[in-house]
C-alpha cells in the first residue's frame, strides 16, 4: 500500500462526489484535481466549466489559475462572464460547484471576505469572486477545507456564500437552489442532516472522533453509522502523481 498525503485523500474523496453526467464549476487546486481525477476514472463525460467562462474545458496540463489559457484551448465554448454566470449558472445548468473558505459554520455558510469587522477587518480576504453565485445557484456544492477550530467556528464573521443559512427550511424559503452537499476536510467527511446541520459521516484513517470534535468550533454531530473514509486507491494515487500534478504543485507540500 502506497503512503498517501492528506491532500491526495481529499482529492480522491471529492472525486467520488461527482457523477458521470454532472456539469461542474471547477476551482483551482484540489477541486481542479478532483474533477480531472473523476474525469479519468468513473466520470469521463464530466463537463468542466470555469468561472472565467470556459465551458467544457479539457486541459492538457494542470491549470495554475481559473483563467489559464490551457482551459480555453480545445474547450467546447468560451463565453463572457455575463453568459457563464447568467446563461449557465443562474439558469440552473450547473450541477456541482466547489467552494472553500476561511470560515465555515454548522449550516455550511462560508466566509471568504473578512475576518473581524467588515469595515475594520483583522484580515482582508479576497472576497467572493463567483462563490456567492455558485453557492446560490448550483444544485449541490462541495466544500473542501483543512479542519481546524478557527476555520470551523459556530458562526462565520461574514456570509460570503450562503449554505443552509439558519437551517434547511430557511434556505428553501429564501428561494435559493440546491445547497451544500458535502464538506471534505483533512480529518473527516461531513454531510448535512434533515435540518441542514453539518454531521460527520466518515472519519479518515488514524483520526478519532475526539480529534474531529476538538478541531470543530461547535458540538458537532456524528452519524450513528459512522464510517472510516476510503483511502485513495493505488490507481488514484498514481494518476494524481504521474499525470494530474506531476510537479507536485498542489500535492507535494503536506505530510
Amino acid at each position: 500500500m502506497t503512503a498517501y498525503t492528506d491532500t491526495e485523500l481529499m482529492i480522491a474523496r471529492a472525486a467520488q462526489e461527482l457523477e458521470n453526467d454532472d456539469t461542474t464549476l471547477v476551482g483551482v487546486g484540489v477541486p481542479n484535481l478532483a474533477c480531472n481525477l473523476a474525469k479519468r476514472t468513473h466520470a469521463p463525460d464530466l463537463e468542466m466549466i470555469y468561472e472565467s467562462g470556459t465551458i467544457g474545458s479539457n486541459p492538457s496540463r494542470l491549470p495554475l489559475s481559473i483563467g489559464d489559457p490551457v482551459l480555453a484551448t480545445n474547450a467546447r465554448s468560451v463565453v463572457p462572464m455575463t453568459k457563464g454566470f447568467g446563461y449557465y449558472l443562474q439558469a440552473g445548468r450547473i450541477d456541482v460547484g466547489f467552494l472553500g473558505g476561511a470560515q465555515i459554520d454548522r449550516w455550511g455558510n462560508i466566509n471568504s471576505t473578512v475576518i473581524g469587522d467588515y469595515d475594520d477587518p483583522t484580515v482582508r480576504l479576497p472576497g467572493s469572486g463567483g462563490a456567492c453565485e455558485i453557492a446560490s445557484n448550483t444544485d449541490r456544492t462541495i466544500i473542501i477545507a483543512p479542519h481546524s477550530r478557527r476555520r470551523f467556528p459556530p458562526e462565520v464573521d461574514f456570509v460570503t456564500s450562503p449554505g443552509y443559512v439558519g437551517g434547511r427550511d430557511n434556505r428553501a424559503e429564501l428561494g435559493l437552489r440546491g445547497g451544500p452537499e458535502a464538506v471534505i476536510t483533512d480529518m473527516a467527511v461531513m454531510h448535512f442532516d434533515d435540518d441542514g446541520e453539518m454531521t460527520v459521516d466518515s472519519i479518515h484513517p488514524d483520526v478519532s472522533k475526539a480529534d474531529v470534535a476538538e478541531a470543530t468550533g461547535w458540538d458537532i454531530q456524528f452519524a450513528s453509522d459512522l464510517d472510516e473514509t476510503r483511502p485513495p486507491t493505488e490507481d488514484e494515487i498514481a494518476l494524481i502523481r504521474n499525470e494530474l500534478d506531476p510537479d507536485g504543485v498542489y500535492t507535494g507540500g503536506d505530510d
Partner: protein
Amino acid sequence: MTAVVDMDDAIARSIEDGQSVYLGGFTHLIPFAAGHEIIRQGYQDLTLIRATPDLIYDQMIAAGCASAVTFSYAGNPGVGSLRAFRRAIEDGVPNELSIDEYSHFGLVSRLEAGAKDLPFVPLRSYVGSGYPDHNDSIRMVANPYDDDVDEIAVVPPLRPDVAVVRAQRADDEGNAHLWGITGEMVEAAFAADTVVLSVEELVDRDVIRSDPNRTAIPGTIVDHVVEEPYGSHPSYAQGYYDRDNVAYLEWDEISETHESTTEWLSEWVHGVDGRREYVAKLETERLLDLQPRTNFSTPIDMGEY
C-alpha cells in the same frame, strides 16, 4: 475619430486624476503596459474597477495612484493575497483605500447595466449573504410580474470614465479581434466614456472584415489604439504568449513589504521608459519560454455574395 497613438499619449490624453478607470481582463489580456504608464505619469486618486484587481492594481495601489477599488475578487490568482491591496485596507499604506465590493456576477452585471444604459440589472444572488448589509448599492426589489419570485437583488450601472482594454489584433480604426477568455472586458468597454484599446498587433482592415463574428470590440466605441507587443506580460495573450506564472509567484515575495514593492516599481516601472525597454529587460529566454505551440482554428467560409 479613432487614432493610433503611443501608450504614453493614449494615457495622457484619456485619464485625469480622480477618475474611475477600468483596466481590462480576467487573468487574460491584462493591460500591464498601460498600468505601468499610469504609474509613471503619476496619477492620483483614481477609482480602479475590475472583477479581479490582480497584480497591476496591487502595483498601482502601492504606487499611490488609487483611492478606491470596485471589485469582486482581490487575490493573486492561484497564489494568495494581494498584499499591497491588503496593506492599504488593513493599515492605510501608502494611503487609505475605500472599497465597493460585489461578487463576480454582481460586478459584471453592473458593467452590463452600464453598457446597456439600464438603471439596474437583476440577479439571483446575494439572498442570505452578508453583502446587502454592507453595500447600499445592492438592493432587493419586488418582482413586478406574477410568478414564484417575490424579490430579487438588483445592482446599479457602472460607467467607468476610462476603460483600457487589450486584444490580440485590431485595425487602425480600432476594430478588435478577441479570442480566449474575455471576462467582463467587452461590457466594460461599452460602459466606459473613453476607451483605450491596446493590441498585440495592428492588422489590415481586410483581416478584421474577414471574420466579423470575432470583432468583439468595434472601432466605433474606441478612442485611441495602441500597438504594444507583450503589453500584457506577465498576464498573457492567447496564442501569442503564456501567462508568466513565475512572475505571479515572485510577486508574493516582492510585495511582502511596502519598501520591497516600491523598490520593484523603481526598477521595473520608473526605471524603464516604456514597454519596449521593459520587454528588453525581461530578456529573450524568458519570453521564448512563454511561447505556446500553434493550434490554429479551422477557417470558416463567410461566403462571397
